[in-house]
C-alpha cells in the first residue's frame, strides 16, 4: 500500500498540500511558492534535516513548527493548529520531496544538547505502568504487544496515514499514543519535550531512508 503511490491514502494529503503550496492567501501576501518557488526543487531534502535550529533566534523547530512560523511571519496569517488537516497536508507534500534520502543526524548539525535531553526522556520511566520508551523499543522490539509487533521506533515516515486513525497523523500524535498507553499524561501539543524526543529518535534513525508519507497499521 505504501509502495504504490496510488493506493497510498496519504497521497491525497500530498495533493491537497501541493495545492495549498501554490495558493496565495487572500490578504495579498505571497503563497509558499511565492518565496520558495517550485516545491520539487526548494523542498528537496528539507524533511531529512528537520528538526533544525532556526538561524534567527536559535529556537529548535520541527517541520510543522517551521511551517507555522512561515505562516505567521511571512504570510501574516494565524498558523494552522497542529494536527489540523491543512498543516499535515502541507507537511506531507514537503516530506515527499525527501523520500529515499537518508535521515541526517541531528548531532552533526549542532543539536547534541537536544539529543541528550531526548535520550533522557526516552529512558525516563513514565506513567502508572512505570515504563520508559527504551523498555519496549530497545529491549523488546520485534516481540508482540497485544497482537501487534513492537517496532524500533524510527520516525522516518511522518506524517503518515495510520489505518487505525483513518487519517494522516503526526509523530507527536503517535508519541501521545504511547504516552496514554503507559498511562502517562502527554505533554501539550508542540511542547519542546516532544521535539527533543523527536530529535533523539531521528538521531537513532540517522542514515535510514526517509519513506514519508508512509502507511502504518
Amino acid at each position, binding site marked *: 500500500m505504501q509502495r504504490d503511490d*496510488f*493506493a497510498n*491514502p496519504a*497521497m*491525497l*494529503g500530498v*495533493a*491537497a498540500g501541493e*495545492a495549498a503550496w501554490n495558493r496565495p492567501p487572500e490578504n495579498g501576501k505571497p503563497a509558499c511558492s511565492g518565496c520558495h518557488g517550485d516545491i520539487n526543487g526548494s523542498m528537496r531534502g528539507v524533511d531529512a534535516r528537520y528538526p533544525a535550529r532556526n538561524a534567527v533566534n536559535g529556537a529548535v523547530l520541527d517541520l510543522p513548527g517551521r511551517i507555522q512560523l512561515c505562516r505567521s511571519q511571512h504570510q501574516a496569517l494565524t498558523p494552522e493548529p497542529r494536527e489540523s488537516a491543512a498543516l499535515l497536508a502541507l507537511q506531507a507534500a514537503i516530506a515527499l520531496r525527501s523520500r529515499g534520502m537518508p535521515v541526517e543526524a541531528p548531532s552533526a548539525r549542532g543539536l547534541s544538547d537536544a539529543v541528550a535531553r531526548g535520550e533522557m526522556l526516552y529512558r525516563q520511566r513514565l506513567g502508572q505502568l512505570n515504563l520508559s520508551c527504551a523498555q519496549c523499543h530497545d529491549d523488546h522490539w520485534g516481540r508482540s504487544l497485544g497482537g501487534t509487533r513492537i517496532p524500533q521506533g524510527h520516525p522516518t515516515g511522518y506524517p503518515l496515514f495510520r*489505518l487505525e486513525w*483513518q*487519517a494522516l497523523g503526526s509523530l507527536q500524535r503517535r508519541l501521545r499514543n504511547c504516552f496514554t498507553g503507559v498511562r502517562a499524561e502527554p505533554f501539550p501539543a508542540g511542547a519542546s519535550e516532544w521535539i527533543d524526543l523527536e530529535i533523539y529518535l531521528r538521531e537513532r534513525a540517522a542514515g535510514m531512508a526517509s519513506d514519508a508519507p508512509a502507511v502504518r497499521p
Partner: protein
Amino acid sequence: MTTAMILVPRTPIRSGDVVMLKAMISHPMETGYRRSEKGEEIPRNIIRRMICRYDGVEVFSVDMHQAIAANPFMSFGVVATRSGPVEFEWVGDNGFRHRQSAQLNVTG
C-alpha cells in the same frame, strides 16, 4: 477540501484492451455509530454512491455503506473501445458531490 485522484494507464492502449481504472477520494466516511468524548452521537457522513462514465456512458457504479473505510479506493477494469473522458462522480450525505475526470486515449 475534497481531493480525488484518478489513475488511467499511461502505457499505449489498443482498442479492445482491458484497462484498470483506479480512483480514490478524500472523505472521512463517518459511520454514524460512533459517539464523541461527550457522549453525543456523531452524525453519519458517508459517500453513498460512486458512478463512473466512460465517454458519457455509465460503465461502473457502486453503492457504499457504513463499512467502507475512509478515503474510498476503487479499482476496476473496463474494455477500452475509443478515446474519451472517464468521468467519476461521488455523491454522499450532507449534499456531498464531487466530479472529476481523466482522459483515456486509445490508439489503434
